[in-house]
């Protein structure tokens, strides 16, 4: 695998604040790469640097092995930005034609029809963008990103402000684009569920530094805290919870409604031991199982770690 996007030690200061403090990661060809972080973490600054809108103070950056400052490199990149940069007074078709002309797409008509079909906007292409819903605007932005058939897509919050149905639709389109059209995608998002569903690799940035980076599955296994979940008929009594806390060997973590969560990683207690302990205190057990750490749990623990004790 070769890196479609390569960042090495990127630093950027905006005014008095150092926004990026040596950001390093690679997005491999064919990846759907999730770029996560809280507000103000440096995601948008990274994306702006990747698109050549800002210049890094130091560090090395290349996209498809070339300098992003070169027009030829930019021809190979499609993007969705926030705000979307669509012209309200133009129709969807005119917006796409404008960008097709900029990218010098030969025979743009067929290409435009193809991407409009891909995002499901063929029937509204003749309407002014000012009349579009937020979800339709985002889909048109995706079509614009695809109009010149780029190798790399850089997407900043493509589902931001879109209703749940629209988000599902955009996720479907993204997966279609990434798999059927074989694109490398860098997706910046706040939406952990979205990233978990569609990305194979992630980086989490916080306060300008990459806190976590790698294959999502691998990270879950090596860093995530898998859990043993015991389902009880009713919320456990306080006395039972107290008893559980007095037994560190059981690895009790927390109670969530009628679920009791225990440490599930290496060296954790046996499920049978936990069940025996609970039934001995009169707790009715309705089910038990293991659950892998979610991206949300990984994300929270990484950010908590970064906060310090």
């Amino acid at each position, binding site marked *: 695998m070769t890196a479609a996007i390569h960042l090495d030690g990127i630093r950027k200061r905006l005014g008095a604040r150092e926004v990026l403090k040596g950001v390093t990661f690679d997005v491999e060809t064919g990846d759907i790469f999730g770029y996560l972080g809280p507000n103000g973490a440096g995601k948008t600054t990274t994306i702006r640097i990747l698109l050549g809108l800002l210049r890094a103070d130091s560090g090395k950056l290349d996209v498809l092995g070339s300098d992003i400052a070169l027009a030829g490199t930019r021809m190979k990149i499609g993007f969705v930005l*926030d705000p*979307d940069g669509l*012209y309200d007074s133009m129709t969807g078709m005119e917006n796409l034609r404008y960008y097709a002309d900029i990218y010098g797409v030969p025979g743009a008509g067929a290409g435009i029809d193809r991407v409009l079909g891909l995002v499901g906007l063929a029937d509204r292409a003749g309407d002014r963008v000012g009349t579009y819903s937020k979800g339709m605007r985002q889909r048109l932005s995706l079509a614009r990103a695809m109009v010149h058939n780029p190798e790399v897509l850089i997407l900043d919050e493509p589902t931001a402000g879109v209703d749940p149905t629209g988000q599902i639709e955009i996720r479907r389109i993204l997966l279609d684009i990434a798999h059927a059209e074989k694109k490398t995608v860098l997706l910046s998002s706040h939406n952990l569920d979205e990233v978990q569903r569609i990305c194979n690799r992630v980086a989490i940035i916080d306060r300008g530094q990459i806190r976590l980076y790698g294959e999502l599955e691998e990270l879950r296994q090596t860093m995530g805290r898998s859990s043993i979940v015991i389902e009880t008929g009713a919320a456990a009594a306080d006395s039972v919870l107290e008893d559980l806390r007095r037994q560190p060997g059981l690895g009790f973590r927390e109670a969530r409604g009628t679920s009791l969560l225990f440490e599930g990683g290496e060296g954790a207690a046996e499920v049978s031991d936990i069940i025996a302990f609970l039934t001995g205190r009169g707790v009715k057990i309705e089910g038990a199982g293991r659950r892998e750490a979610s991206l949300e749990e990984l994300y929270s623990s990484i950010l908590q770690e970064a906060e310090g004790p």
Partner: protein
Amino acid sequence: MRYTALVMKAAMRANFRSPAVAAVIAGVALMCAAGLAVLFGTLFIRPEVARAAPDRSVLENHVGLVMFATSFVCIGIYASVFTFQSLTREKDRGCIQALLATPVAPRDVWLGKSLGVFLPGLAFAVVTTLAAFLGVSYTYLIPDIGFIITPWMIITSFVAVPLVYLAMTLVVHLVGLTGRPATGNVIAQVFLPVMMSLMINLAVRKVPSAASWVFTVALLGVAAAAGIIVLLLRSKLTAERITLSR
């Protein structure tokens, strides 16, 4: 040049899609131009024509002033309103940022957007100035005197004034792109009345006459000064500065 032309075409298309704004601009500009023509015609041209021996230089000065003022008002109002509108709207909506993420360079955006406002303004000014000239001529001068026109009047109205506004449009777009569009708008809004009233005051006192080469050269000097400002500010035109400006 290809990108500049594409940005220019898109800017023109976007501006023409605001018919209400275009109508207001045209209405205001035409009212100003007609008002000036009637004012100069009634106060200065008609009394001079009524004299036993009309002074041709006085008539040249006032017809020249009508042409200058019409050209200046039309191109000035058109350029300042559409510049502010398009810069504010497109910066807010991320259109300019999106363009800069393509192979389009900041210089293409700047030139394309400036020309997209300037060229239709120029066409509007040329047509209106010709109409004002013919209107004043047929109302006050023909058949007694005939057409009053000198080469300097033509150069002033159709070359010097457009050059002043081309340079000013470039300055205002440069300031608006790299800083706040409102700052560029203030420059445009102050420049139009101050410059016009200054030139009219000078011409009414015949220092210099609006039909003289000095008047033309003074305007070309203003265009050159604005051009020097453009050259000095041009280094600030970077994608980063545009992206980070509000």
